[in-house]
């Protein structure tokens, strides 16, 4: 059946390249002729705050810039506390792609709040949704810094999962990132494909 469109939430913290991720993905869908609305919600300042992007593509005009809770097909998250924040937004058959990276929150650091007692990775796995977990520590590489390029790794993972053309995606990456970063980005992309192939096998 032809894909009529999807609702995606991309989440993480400032500095993880969420806006670049949605920019790259939007170019792919534009090439396929979809209509798009991408709405970014950026927390207070660029300093370690939460970032959330509502990404909608459709073969009909997209109406609301925000996705209703319960209407999300895919949650792609680069930080696991943020993954938890949006789990309830997923459809019953919605799918989670989450990094195990965690940036401790200032309120926990300063003991204004207690951290959650359970492991966040376990909470995600127990959510009852189909879940793909990527652990940056297990996938370190000398070719690129995975802590900075989880966005590209996840892009490749998502593309592999959806059966999209990696060739075209890499072309988009090449056209969009500054020249000196292209090589590292492609390495990160290739790593993402291999992680995805292992997990999806």
């Amino acid at each position: 059946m032809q894909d009529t469109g999807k609702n995606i939430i991309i989440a993480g913290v400032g500095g993880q390249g969420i806006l670049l991720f949605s920019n790259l993905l939007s170019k792919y869908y534009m090439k396929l002729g979809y209509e798009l609305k991408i709405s970014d919600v950026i927390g207070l300042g660029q300093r370690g705050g939460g970032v959330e992007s509502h990404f909608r593509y459709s073969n009909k005009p997209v109406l609301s810039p925000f996705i209703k809770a319960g209407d999300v097909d895919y949650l792609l998250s680069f930080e696991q506390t943020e993954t938890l924040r949006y789990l309830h937004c997923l459809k019953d058959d919605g799918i989670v792609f989450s990094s195990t990276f965690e940036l401790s929150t200032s309120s926990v650091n300063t003991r204004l709040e207690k951290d959650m007692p359970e492991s966040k990775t376990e909470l995600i796995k127990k959510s009852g949704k189909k879940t793909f977990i990527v652990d940056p520590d297990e996938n370190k590489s000398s070719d690129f810094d995975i802590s900075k390029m989880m966005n590209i790794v996840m892009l490749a993972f998502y593309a592999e999962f959806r059966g999209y053309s990696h060739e075209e995606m890499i072309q988009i990456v090449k056209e969009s990132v500054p020249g000196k970063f292209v090589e590292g980005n492609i390495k990160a992309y290739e790593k993402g494909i291999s992680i995805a192939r292992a997990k999806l096998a």
Partner: protein
Amino acid sequence: MKKENKITTLKMMNGNEAVARGAFEAGVKVASGFPGTPSTEVMDYTQQRYPDIYCEWSTNEKVGLEVAIGASFAGYRSLAVMKTVGLHVAADALGGAAGSQINGGLVLVVGDDVGRIAGDDYNDVRHYGNMFNIPVLEPSDSQEAKDLMVRAFEISEEYSTPVILKITSVICKTTSSVAIDENYTYEVKCRKKYPVSFSKVIMTTMMMNAKGSEHPKLIKCFQDFPAQMKRLAADSNNFGINKLELKGKKIGVITAGTPYFYTKEVLPDASILKLGMVMPLPEKLIRELAEHVEQLYVIEDGHDIMEKNIKDLGISVIGKELFPKFPEMTRFTPDIIEEKLVPNAPKRTPMEGIPFRLPVSCAGCSHLFISQILRNHKIKAASDVTCGLIGCFPHMEAYQLQKCMGSSIALAHGFNVATDHKEKFVGMIGDGGFWATGINGLMNLIFNDSQSTTIIVDNSCLAMTGGQHVASSEFGFNYKPENKLEIAKVCEAIGVKDIVTVDAYEFENLEKAILNAVKANTNSVVIVEKPCVTKFKLPKGDAYSIDQDLCTQCRKCIKIGCLAIESKKGKDGKVEIVINEDLCVGCGLCSTACKFDAIKS
């Protein structure tokens, strides 16, 4: 406008970008204003993409709007951009322009921070439409943001009035496609219709039929602005930007902005009146919808302004009794509409106990040094609206008072005169806040014989809004080295008795300077220099690290508020206080806070 070889293409743009494109297509000559989330980028895009348009960041919003009013009187289309709190500053200027004769179209692009994305108090710019009797337009997506920008100038000129284009954080940060003509050539518009233009003060004299008011020289500047607005209201029933979509008879919704799309998505069968101009209202269209449906609702972000205006027409409509306003609700989402108007809609609630992210400063920020010293010495202080206000949050507790932009100097002075200067209350202010309006507070405290101390944080930009230039920056749209203002020289000229300039990273000197200033029996200014680490991408020093054998987990270092210092739970569940070496810039501040010598470079 060369129309011959029009090439229409679709471009993805966010709302800010689209407004800038609209300004270009409207033939705007002058753009001025002051940064503020969410609308700052309107100016950035205008300046970067359309070099034909004169752009300036003014010292504050009032000045910015006055510049635009002057340009408009000269005959040129001009725009002033600001956030809604900024319009509070510029309101006096707007009151002067409203009701007066307009030559070149005058449009205020004002950003409402719905949903409190930047944490400001919840405002609604449309109040100014009611207060000053001027039109307010509101787009629902990027395409409309561009189109309404052009339309706003036409309305401004046709009805001789300033026009407000209300944009919101959702519009500004949502990207969608906009049809543009690639071959569009910029053509500046100029219209000199009225040789004079005075504020309503003079015209009221005429309306009251005061003696001598019929003098031809006065009549020349008279414009019956209430009549203009009535004409606009009547005409607006036929405006294409106000769309009546008659469908089902059960539910009718009057809406505007992005809530229009939420409504369409959640209530596909509802009849909708979608307003591109939210003020004045198209009464005929509203009555037509009211007659068509069983129940009429108004769905609007922000305050209950359309609702009240509709009710004033004698039309009954359901609004805030069903959809409570701030603080119960900060902005509409499709979920809220569904919950209230769709029977048996499933309810989804977020997981409980997920920790909250309080804002933290960038690693190496000069503000952290100041907060640390104030706290160490229990010096009471007011923070201005700056990146440094993070020091007000409960995890830092460095400041006791914080109000609006530019206020801290006068706040401290007020505290000090009330307490007979027994306990010196200090005002901390950024360079931007200082030039914006803080400088007035400083002049005021000098000639009123105050002994207050002011700390001016010279980081060469408006950091909190992303690093725009200020009068004392060494860069900027219209920058020339010979025009750069010097904070110290201006303070001296104003008459400050005791002025010291220190580098923020020289911790001991800074500490001494602040303590001396506070002790002095005179007014004093401490200028703390260090370019914003993030804006100017300062070179990093070697990262610091924490020796876990020495660390007692007292968390004193966390209290300084540096983004690089984290408390981390390892896989074994053990907590460690660590420094993130990717983020640490090696400023050394944390090592001054550790009594156990656990932090080393």
